[in-house]
């Protein structure tokens, strides 16, 4: 993974930069010793590590604005960081960049049941919001698997998903407003407790912008009333193809379950070895379908989903009879990653999305790829929305296996695009999928996206080297009639 070459002038100015930051921030907000900075050298994509130039942990929005404006004026790059759980390297530091941590923004500022929303600082964890409102029977719907640790600010940056997106949407569908700071140091308030933008939807483009457009300093999210009943149904199939078809059949029947997950045989057995969830070990694929709502509705839909499953050729079917049993059904799914971690020294988790109907075809291709690369793969899918999480098993200590695993992963994502899908459903592009962007977008598609970036940050100082494989200068992007095909600026950094 090639990152932009660190700017030597910035590196040589490090002492001055640290001194200037210390002068504008309270004591303890600037970390410049190697031992403490080490904690920030990677995010959830830990295969990549880089020590930052310096770490700052501001305490107020004004301090964030001061830091950003100073960095802009002094041509210093900035990498924002929430809880550092990104699986795509979105918060990977730069050697010549200030790492701006939002960890001290850890307070919920307003819980408003009348308007069913919560106003919070961005460093609060996703689950922290639910914890703050659950006594009144409410919750925050998006539930990425890292929800115990990931911050809501990071969720905005990545447009995080989770198991229940099919019915309740991603982060973007659940955020009402933010306060953000631009690289210019301007503090903007977008949205709030009211709905819609009333002009250009800047909040919408900020969500999922991976820390490239601005730094979020406050978040307003909507909260939902917890459903009266939640029940799950566990369905085994003799072939993965039948299971894939069953997923489409449920949707075609007009049913939108709260969640619809799929595991293949290697994932089933890894999970079963790990937590004894009672999964059918001989099934080629397993579906977990969750339904929620009033009890009569859940009962009715369980029957209908059961019929669809039987018609689709299910080999086993169990409906949760208690909350304990429902949690047991989920325990295997939720521990799938650590369970796979036990059967392989290392694994890579991929994150493409395909049209639901392509699931059977994708599974066939996956087996062929597994053979081709000589590496095992365990599949865990958010099947309801076509979001795949293939886990590629490898051993980093075996010469060449990491590289082969990465090639396998890239081929999976290329196949996702080939089948009409996308490179990433919820983990983000970051550095991990940056060089694959051209598989999905044309040069012109990416240029228009980067022009939007230029509207926010013309100096490319905020989180450069992420998302886009080629860093165009804004002046070049702004020019009209760019010549097709030719590369007019061979001096531009390509990585």
């Amino acid at each position: 993974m090639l990152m932009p070459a660190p700017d030597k002038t910035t590196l040589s100015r490090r002492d001055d930069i640290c001194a200037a930051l210390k002068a504008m921030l309270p004591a303890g907000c600037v970390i410049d010793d190697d031992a403490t900075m080490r904690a920030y050298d990677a995010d959830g994509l830990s295969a990549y590590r880089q020590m930052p130039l310096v770490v700052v942990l501001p305490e107020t929005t004004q301090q964030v604005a001061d830091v950003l404006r100073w960095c802009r004026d002094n041509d210093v790059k900035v990498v924002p960081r929430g809880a550092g759980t990104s699986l795509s390297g979105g918060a990977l530091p730069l050697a010549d960049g200030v790492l701006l941590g939002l960890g001290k923004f850890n307070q919920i500022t307003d819980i408003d049941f009348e308007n069913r929303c919560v106003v919070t600082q961005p460093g609060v964890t996703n689950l922290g919001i639910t914890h703050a409102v659950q006594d009144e029977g409410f919750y925050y719907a998006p539930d990425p698997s890292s929800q115990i640790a990931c911050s809501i600010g990071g969720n905005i940056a990545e447009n995080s998903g989770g198991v229940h997106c099919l019915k309740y949407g991603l982060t973007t569908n659940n955020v009402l407003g933010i306060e953000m700071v631009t690289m210019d140091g301007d503090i903007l308030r977008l949205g709030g407790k009211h709905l819609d933008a009333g002009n250009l939807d800047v909040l919408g483009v900020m969500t999922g912008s991976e820390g490239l457009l601005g730094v979020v300093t406050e978040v307003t999210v909507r909260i939902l009333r917890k459903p009266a009943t939640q029940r799950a149904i566990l369905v085994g199939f003799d072939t993965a193809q039948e299971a894939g078809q069953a997923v489409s059949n449920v949707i075609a029947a007009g049913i939108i379950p709260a969640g619809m997950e799929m595991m293949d045989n290697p994932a089933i057995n890894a999970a079963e070895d790990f937590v004894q969830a009672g999964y059918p070990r001989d099934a080629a694929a397993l579906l977990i379908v969750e339904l929620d709502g009033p009890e009569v509705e859940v009962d009715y839909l369980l029957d209908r989903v059961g019929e669809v499953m039987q018609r689709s050729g299910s080999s086993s079917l169990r409906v949760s009879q208690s909350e304990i049993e429902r949690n047991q059904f989920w325990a295997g799914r939720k521990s799938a990653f650590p369970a796979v971690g036990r059967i392989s020294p290392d694994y890579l988790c991929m994150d493409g999305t395909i049209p639901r109907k392509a699931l059977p075809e994708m599974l066939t291709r996956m087996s062929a790829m597994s053979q081709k690369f000589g590496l095992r793969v365990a599949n865990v899918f958010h099947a309801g929305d076509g979001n795949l999480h293939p886990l590629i098993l490898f051993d980093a200590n075996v010469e060449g296996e990491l590289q082969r695993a990465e090639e396998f992963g890239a081929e999976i994502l290329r196949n996702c695009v080939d089948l009409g899908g996308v490179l990433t459903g919820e983990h983000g592009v970051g550095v991990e999928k940056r060089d694959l962007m051209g598989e999905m977008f044309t040069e012109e598609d990416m240029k228009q996206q980067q022009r939007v970036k230029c509207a926010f940050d013309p100096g490319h100082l905020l989180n450069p080297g992420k998302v886009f494989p080629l860093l165009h200068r804004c002046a070049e992007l702004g020019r009209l009639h760019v010549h097709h095909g030719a590369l007019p600026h061979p001096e531009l950094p390509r990585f």
Partner: protein
Amino acid sequence: MTFLPEAHEALEEFMRQAVADKTSLHIVGTGTKEKLGDMVTADASLSLAHLSGIVDYQPEELIMVAKPGTRLDEITVALAEKKQMLAFEPANLSFLYGAEHAGSVGGIIAANLSGPRRISAGAARDYLLGFTAVSGRGTSFTSGSRVMKNVTGYDLSKLICGSMGTLAVMSELTLKVLPRPETSTTLSVKCAALAPAQKALSAAFKSATEPSGGAITRASSGALSLGDEPAAAHVRLEGVAQSVADRTSTLCDVLAEFGRVSVLEQDASEALWQDIRDIRILDEAAEQVWKLSVTPSHVSEVITAITAQTVIRFFCDWAGGLIILSGAGEGLHQIVRSAVEAHGGGHASLLRAPDTMRGAIASFHPQPTALAGLHDRIRQSFDPLHLLNPGKMGSVSRDA
């Protein structure tokens, strides 16, 4: 002269020429909402009425791909055949604008117009999964995808939605569609005033009954006046029959403390929400019609602040968070906007006014300087020569 492209290639060619000639364009879908937004002065007209048709509809994938000029009626019928819908409940504003039909899907997306289900299912912007367009540089680009869950690259769908044709001209849209609810019911409760009606809605939305609409009408709202009652709160429940029946019973108990509850069954319920969605319950002859997005619990304060200064008719949707009001007078925009700003924040957009007034009043709520500057730069990133619907969303500061 109006150019009416029938295919993407013709649109791109036309746009390329317009950019080369620096020809500014007045862009419309089928022209049913032309009076929404500020007045546009342009060198030429571009209509997408012939760039029309459903390109791909996959009910089991919950997606529909359509060209922007496709009539909303055509889309609604195609979806209904498969028991599906556009869940954001697009409004038919033909009553407001004197149009013959509900307009085009491109127009609805460009204006980000959502109906009563906005409160539970989200806005138009939540259902645009991807699009292809030609920018004000005369170049084609695509953003988003045809799948539900996608975070690859910036979400330009959100920017396009609600941009009133000022960023790019869409040639194809991919929409997320959802199953239609099997049945619906509305519970109405008569209240002494606006404030308790809003409280009734709040209680309904706080309950576990999953309302999909929450509106307040008043005797003075117009055709839907309910006797002499100062305000009536309406809550819609949708879903499978057993579930709706069960929730209706629970919600009756929740609402009973606010007044006498009556139940509207399916047909009456649908008629009520259609009228609310299409803004049919205001005075047809009103000089000005405004749309205010406010914090639901502040609705009463906002209305009080306005009615202290002028006479209006109004109704509320989105659990109290949307006020549609009609009134008159050159100072109305200041009264309305300062009331919103002083009571919880939000925005007020002008939906309809005589042309003489539209020239003088900003249709979209003025933004703080830093945000307005960012909006300008975003527009320039798509349309550096300001050729696309110039002035539609307010004046853009031109580059030197």
